[in-house]
């Protein structure tokens, strides 16, 4: 899960050239295959998403999501198999409980609604994957560059409390 600062250096925040940078954690069996299908079917979706493949959405430790924001992701998408379809039978059910709490918690701490999103995409849903990436990208674009929890945006001391 080492995202190097070089590899994901903050997108240009000068209003003109800024493009949201979204990190997507996809499960190997459904959502990654869905993304693959979208690609092989030549479907268009915004190129703002960077994909990390994991065995299961249940493998997504909440620390990954917070770390992604810390390292400069403007948005995070986590996607797994539909409930009931998990390759490991129940991984996404466990994940769902974790994410339900995490999403509310991050919003409570002041992370804007829409920065961190969750979806279920099956291996046959290439079109749905393209739709979801489009939607998340638009949501994040509307929110603008992520500054909260972002190590690059608040690297200087004495800025606590400044959004």
């Amino acid at each position, binding site marked *: *899960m*080492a995202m190097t600062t070089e590899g994901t250096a903050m997108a240009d925040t000068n209003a003109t050239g800024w493009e949201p940078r979204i990190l997507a954690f996809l499960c190997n069996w459904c959502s990654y295959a869905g993304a693959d299908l979208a690609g092989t079917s030549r479907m268009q979706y915004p190129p703002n998403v960077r994909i990390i493949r994991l065995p299961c959405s249940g493998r997504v430790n*909440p*620390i990954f999501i*917070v*770390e992604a924001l*810390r390292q400069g992701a403007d948005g995070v998408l986590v996607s797994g198999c539909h*409930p*009931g379809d998990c390759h490991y039978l*129940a991984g996404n*059910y*466990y994940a*769902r*409980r*974790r*994410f*339900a*709490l*995490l*999403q*509310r*918690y*991050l*919003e*409570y*701490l*002041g*992370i*804007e*609604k829409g920065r961190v*999103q*969750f*979806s*279920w995409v099956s291996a046959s849903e290439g079109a749905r994957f393209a739709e*979801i990436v489009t*939607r*998340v990208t638009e949501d994040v674009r509307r929110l603008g560059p992520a500054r*909260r*929890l*972002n*190590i690059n945006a*608040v*690297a200087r*001391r004495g*800025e*606590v*409390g400044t*959004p």
Partner: protein
Amino acid sequence: MTPLPETLRHTIAGWLEAGEIELFIGYEAGAVPLRATPVFIRDAADVERLIWDATCENNLVAFLPKYRGKKVGIMVKGCDARAVVGLLQEGQVIRENLRIVGVPCGGVVDARKVAARLGVAVEDLDDAAVTADGGVEAGGEGIPAGEALFDLCLACDRHNPNVYDVLLGDLLPEGGSAAAEDFAHVRAIEALDDDERWAAFNAELARCNLCYACRNACPLCYCNTCFADRTMPRWFNQTVGPEDLQFYQVIRTFHLAGRCVGCGACTRACPQGVNLRLFLDKLRLDTHDLFGYEAGTDAAAHPPLTTYSPDDPDDFVL
């Protein structure tokens, strides 16, 4: 300070002599005014040192995971007992190994609050003493319980331990459950907008100096290697820069999701007065809201993040 009653000292000495326990964790008079200190009794003759009064603020359950597999006696207040239940649920302690002295607790004294009221430093509360009703007498002034106890204790309606072998004193009348709590401090933050919530979060963190007292005082923070201490990967740097404080606090508190029993040990332990309950209580509230679960109430229940239901809330998923 009030020594334990004769019969109770006798009981504890008996456990030690009979080998039912090898260690009893309780409180003794402390060096700092209005603060008892934890004591570890291994010799039956030392039970004389044990006390109980409203200065016994520590949640001693934080020591239990260090004695995994050992037979240990311990003194618990109502909130501490819920932490014992949490450890039982997570298999960190075995009930048969424990001898629990339960204390129906009317609240413990907040020395900082008392000192602030008198306009002196905590160390200068030399002549302060607790009264039978939980108030404090200091500097010739009587401070009623309502102004001397921790805020958490004043709001507490569950004074009685829910797991114990013997009881010190009589059970107190009490309300019920987390469902009955109003969580007004959490609701107040929820009502703010993003910017204000972020400011509120950082306003608390601005005082944090990353001493890890919250983690060390927490009965459920028992990982052998905390993520904060890991060097591979090293998740964040050991600095008081806002980005490091944010990362530590977000992750540590989230590790208590569905597990925090709301004993307030972290908040009482914080030397900087960071109100960690603002964050942990949000998790307790949501856990109850989403999964109808309350930590520390049922030793046979699965913690909510270790189980699932096909009917769990799904409306937040795209």
